[in-house]
């Protein structure tokens, strides 16, 4: 029978752990809501830039931006979004698994694979493997900004422009609901020209361009792609918080169970000690 004192200190330590996990759970819950809000805020930009790009395409059918030209996929680039911190369940592991599957598939098809890794956990994982990492950004925090992504995305876009990559995909966790996050692979480049025609507008009209259509399209496409990566990043933060919330809830529950069990053992030990003492007193009295 372990001493009551040891059990008591064990209970105290589990209780303080439970306090921390509970606090982390609540912090994650509130951060998740804010991340979801940012996810929603990012949508109008993507929709608006997509609309302008579609329009430009329809108005200039003879001009094809390099980002829109389909090439045989001999070199594939993947932008992998991961979290900076752990304690968020299998979120990162799932994203990495999907990335590796994609990489192996591409290699079987005879294509090379290179990566751009966002987030600490991804960098820690992929640096041990032998895929070339072209660029990386870490420490983006819970509120990523587009400005932090520009560099890493530019490296990949430049590689595509120079013909070192023939396809660019984005791998990140998709927020289905609080309990479910799924890895998603999204093709960034080449951009499929959207064939749908906007209703309610005359078919043959064009903008006045200042300076030129090509230049504007280039600037727009880069911003559009950055906003896609940003959206993936923000969604990943929402997933991270949801996963952490669930993981911390499980941890708090487990700690609660452990405390109940320990309490039981403690009570038994205490009772045994009292009984023993009583028996000793009675025995002593009888001896006298």
């Amino acid at each position, binding site marked *: 029978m372990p001493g009551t004192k040891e059990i008591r200190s064990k209970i105290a330590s589990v209780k303080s752990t439970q306090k*921390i996990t509970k606090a982390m759970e609540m912090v994650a819950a509130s951060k998740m809501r804010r991340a979801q809000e*940012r996810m929603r*805020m*990012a949508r*109008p*930009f*993507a929709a*608006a*830039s997509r*609309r*302008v790009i579609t329009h*430009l395409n329809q108005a200039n059918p003879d001009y094809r931006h390099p980002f829109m030209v389909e090439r045989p996929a001999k070199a594939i680039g993947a932008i992998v979004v991961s979290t900076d911190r752990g304690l968020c369940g299998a979120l990162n592991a799932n994203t990495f698994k999907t990335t590796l599957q994609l990489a192996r598939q591409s290699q079987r098809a005879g294509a090379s694979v290179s990566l*751009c*890794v966002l987030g*600490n956990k991804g*960098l*820690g994982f992929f*640096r041990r493997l032998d895929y070339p*990492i*072209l*660029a*990386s*950004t*870490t420490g983006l925090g819970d509120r990523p*900004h*587009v*400005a932090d992504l*520009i*560099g*890493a995305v*530019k*490296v990949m876009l*430049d590689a595509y422009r120079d013909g070192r990559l023939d396809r660019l995909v984005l791998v990140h966790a998709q927020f289905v609901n609080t309990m479910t996050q799924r890895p998603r692979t999204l093709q960034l480049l080449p951009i499929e020209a959207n064939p749908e025609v906007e209703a309610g*507008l005359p078919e043959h*009209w*064009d*903008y*006045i*361009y*200042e*300076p030129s*259509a090509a*230049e*504007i399209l280039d*600037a*727009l496409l880069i*911003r559009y792609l*950055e*906003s896609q990566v*940003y959206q993936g990043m923000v969604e990943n933060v929402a997933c991270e918080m949801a996963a952490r919330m669930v993981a911390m809830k499980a941890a708090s529950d487990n700690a609660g169970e452990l405390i109940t069990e320990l309490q039981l053992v403690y009570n038994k030990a205490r009772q045994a000690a009292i009984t023993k003492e009583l028996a000793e007193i009675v025995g002593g009295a009888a001896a006298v």
Partner: protein
Amino acid sequence: MDIQLDIVSAEGEIFSGRARLVILPGSEGELGITPRHAPLLTLIKPGEVRVQTPDGEEQSFYVGGGALEVQPNRITVLADTAARAHDLDEAAALAAQQRAQEALSGHLDKISYAEAQAELARAVAQIKLIQKLRKIKG
């Protein structure tokens, strides 16, 4: 006479509503757009966007550059959240490449270990503070 105006950035909507006049810094010069302007697509420089709403009020926003689209029935400003320039983008790209190389050459462990330690120290300090506050309150 007014027209629908949307100013959006990748991180959120900045303005959405009706406008009588919009003045913005175009890449080729200052632009003033009124309703029924010809369809126009242009880039804008970092600067101030001034909006005159139908009730005569004037609002102004700072944008870090971006693109302007004018359609018969709406104006859209796709605003940048960060100042953009060729050199700046290039520098950011170089930094991203460098980080990847550093990580591959093995500096990551030390950095992340130190970071983790610092973070742990901060968390412990926070918990201590909270406990102190609780004692005072209780």
